[in-house]
């Protein structure tokens, strides 16, 4: 018996996840800047105000720290707030409340407190939004114990992970790629469809190299895999889906099979997500590797505005293909 599916966009997945969870649990509410009447600057929360009213769908002042703090306080006292930070770059203003308060409350209180806060924010360059509206800062919160981090690449993953996040009793952060809101994909037609955190997904099977990719880079990796196939290289694409907790088992199993791995993530490469994943693969699959684990991230430069420069900074399928080729070349030599 297979669940029927519908095709929706990544943006619609956000709306459906929030709406379903709000219907299911009256302690769930949603707030952020221009999210209610306007339905968000990316228009992905249109309609929620109409269905749930002003009390549960709130337009806030431009006060990232304040609304995050209010989210923490509400979460500590029996509510399940979802707080939107419009551009991931603005989370810089709310870090104290997430990192020093929300993430640590359960631990610091010896398990007395729980903080069922869900933070939704965006990542991704590619729209000439320039250096303050294009960052992918997922590494920061992945570094912080007490927070759980999801980074969905498809409508189905977004919906399932966001619903899980809302039901989770811990602070969770969902990084949505703003370039993918229009992306379509099938989603199970089931109000109770969720995806557990800590379960990676093999987005494409292959036998010669493992591409571990996050968010929009999953699609870049799939394109690269298509190109590699024509050259006779069979690439497996593994999407960790959540960075914390991280499903290393699935990744390591894949690398044990392929003996080669490339990790790709759109953030600044240095001290980012690729370093963590690559170092763990290089360690845990040491005896299986035929080539070094390579990393492909964005250039370590602020994201430039110019359409003549911005694309240079973002990993693309050509770069991935070259990187994979290098792995075989090196070994062949």
């Amino acid at each position, binding site marked *: 018996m297979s669940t029927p599916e519908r095709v929706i966009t990544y943006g619609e997945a956000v709306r459906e996840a929030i709406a379903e969870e709000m219907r299911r649990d009256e*302690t769930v*509410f949603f707030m952020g800047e221009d999210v209610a009447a306007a339905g968000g600057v990316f228009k992905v929360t249109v309609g929620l105000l109409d269905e749930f009213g002003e*009390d*549960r769908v709130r337009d*806030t*002042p431009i*006060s990232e*720290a*304040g*609304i*995050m*703090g*209010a*989210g*923490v*306080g*509400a*979460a*500590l*006292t*029996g*509510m399940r*707030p979802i707080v939107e930070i419009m551009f991931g770059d603005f989370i810089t203003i709310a870090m*104290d*409340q997430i990192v*020093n*308060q929300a993430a640590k*409350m*359960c*631990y*610091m*209180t*010896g*398990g*007395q*407190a*729980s*903080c*069922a806060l869900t933070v939704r924010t965006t990542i991704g360059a590619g729209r000439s939004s320039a250096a303050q509206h294009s960052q992918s800062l997922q590494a920061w919160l992945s570094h912080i*114990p*007490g927070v*759980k981090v999801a980074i969905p690449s498809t409508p189905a993953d977004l919906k399932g992970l966001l619903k899980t996040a809302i039901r989770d*009793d*811990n602070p969770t952060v969902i990084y949505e790629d703003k370039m993918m809101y229009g992306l379509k994909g099938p989603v199970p037609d089931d109000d109770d469809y969720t995806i557990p955190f800590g379960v990676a997904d093999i987005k494409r099977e292959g036998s010669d190299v493992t591409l571990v990719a996050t968010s929009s880079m999953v699609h870049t990796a799939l394109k690269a895999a298509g190109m590699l196939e024509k050259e006779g290289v069979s690439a497996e694409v593994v999407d960790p889906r959540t960075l914390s907790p991280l499903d290393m088992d699935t990744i390591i199993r894949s690398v044990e099979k392929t003996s080669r791995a490339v990790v790709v993530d759109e953030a600044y490469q240095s001290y980012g997500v690729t370093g963590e994943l690559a170092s763990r693969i290089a360690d845990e699959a040491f005896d299986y590797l035929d080539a070094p684990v390579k990393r492909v991230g964005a250039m370590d430069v602020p994201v430039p505005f110019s359409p003549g420069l911005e694309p240079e900074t973002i990993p693309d399928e050509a770069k991935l293909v070259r990187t994979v080729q290098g792995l075989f070349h090196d070994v062949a030599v």
Partner: protein
Amino acid sequence: MSESLEMITTSSDEGTLPLPEPLCREIYDKMLTIRRFEEAVLDIYTQGLMRGLAHLYIGQEASAVGICSALNDDDYLTSTHRGHGHLIAKGGKVDRMMAEMMGKVDGYNRGKGGTMHIADMSLGILGANGIVGGGMGMATGAALSGKMRGSGQVAVCFFGDGAINQGAFLESANLASIWSLPVLFVCENNHYGEYTAASDVTAVREHVAERAAGFDMPAVVVDGNDAVAVHQTAVEMVQRARTGEGPCLIENKTYRYRGHHVGDGDPEKTYRTQEETDTWLAKDPIPRFARRMLKAGMMDEAELESIDTTITKRVEDAVAFANESPYPEAGEVTDHVYA
């Protein structure tokens, strides 16, 4: 101070004690408990039985007790690094607090939080806080939560004169005001943030409370060493908040008799004068309240003494309890990272 700011200085030192006797007894008991507790903390810290930093509340007792005596058990409270007084005033148990000071497993937080993070969620105490201004957003959110659930709960946010210069105040005050949230922002102006005088770093004409007007919020400046004045103000503002009229800012003018934390030297030799401290010592909230109870015939000297004996014993027992409690097992270190 401009009248249009709707600030009033309440000082009830003169006249009779306008509160019922059981309440007065409770206020006195709580204030003295805080004093004796803090003296014991000073003691264990000096003996090396407690690590971290101990920020004593000595001198400010009327503020915590005056406010919390106007609250219900299920009302919320956020506290600060100088939080012991707030916790006791809200009903926190001294033995579990003391155990927490020492990092013991019977502490409120199983030893994981320590002095700056004690919480008792069952009493609505959302925790002391190591971040100056860190509780402002949380109190606002707790008030929002109470309002959304229709529970009638209010939230009290305690913070110092130093915290009024954190942007968090603006954002929280604004949110609370536009949404008419039942939150009392209580600034305990003890005139110093660490070693810096509030007047050197705080741009106001005279009172921190002046900042409330910019958020369309009433403000009251109170003699924070007068438990009656604080209590009466709190009753009025809690009532206001509970009936949906929104937040307020209460500025309790007070003084900490000790340094910023235990072991950081003698304030009177560095950043403040003996003369100033003496002026405030003359306004010590505890003898002041005792005098009024005596005058009102609610108590006599003998009873005052016996209360002190009882409280001192309770605090000694708490220290003994804490001393006997073990550290948590090493294996606990990975518990509670997630709920």
